[in-house]
């Protein structure tokens, strides 16, 4: 687990690549009990809702954003706040990359703030996020 005293604004968190598949999307939607057809029914998604392809769940991207922080913190980490926005849709077949950077360190409260992102293959931030974590000095 990182220590507050070793952190600087600008410290980067490890990046990770996600390549969702029809199987991983199926399992995610089964786990959250979600039958929204835009996540598995390609003809409905493209013909009725007019998307270019099967849509990767926004909250799944939210989960991957939270993992940027939880993996960095390790097994004993303490997440205090977490938020994200789904700004741009992502479609099955895209390769996504998550990452983050420390934007504030506050020794008085023992917390650090991290900006988070998921980028698509074109490098556009499709889901930005932010987290506050509590760390030992």
């Amino acid at each position: 687990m990182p220590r507050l005293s070793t952190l600087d604004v600008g410290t980067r968190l490890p990046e990770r690549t996600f390549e969702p598949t029809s199987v991983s999307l199926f399992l995610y939607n089964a786990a959250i009990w979600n039958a929204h057809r835009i996540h598995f029914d390609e003809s409905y998604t493209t013909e009725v809702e007019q998307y270019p392809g099967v849509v990767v769940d926004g909250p799944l991207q939210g989960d991957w954003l939270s993992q940027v922080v939880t993996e960095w913190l390790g097994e004993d980490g303490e997440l205090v706040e977490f938020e994200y926005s789904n700004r741009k849709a992502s479609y099955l077949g895209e390769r996504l990359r998550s990452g983050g950077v420390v934007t504030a360190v506050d020794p008085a409260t023992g917390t650090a703030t991290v900006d988070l992102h998921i980028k698509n293959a074109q490098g556009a931030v499709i889901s930005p996020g932010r987290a506050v974590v509590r760390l030992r000095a």
Partner: protein
Amino acid sequence: MGDLITPEIRSWVGRSDPPQRIEVTRRDIMKYAIATEQRLKKYRRGDEAPPMFLYDAHQSLTPITELRSDGLWVDTLLPELPLTRVMAGGIRHEYYRPIKAGNVLVLTRTLTDIYEKQGTSGPLIFVVYAMRVESENGELVMEETRRRIFR
């Protein structure tokens, strides 16, 4: 600003669902952890729930015949809206206690706002919910603000 949000629609703001009581099982955490490709052992073993584990956990489980034609469950905390296609918007969480296998949680959701915005390809309706998650003993576990977008 447009006129999609009628006074009748706006009058729903402030309403709450009946509290939803859920039992957190190790197996459900493990399934969620696999589906989301978690790497930490505490999640993979199902000891503790990942931060986004409770996504949609407040929903009433309804028969297939009662789902919408797009597969979504009918949100009884919303009036009929003039836009019907749903997109995820985003979430804000504040965490107070870890959620562990075996916990019993009480989830209470309140509709806190409905507003309209002009998107690049037409009007959008934003719906905002606040959800409070407590332990059976009434200890605050987590608070959530969630936005859904109708287009």
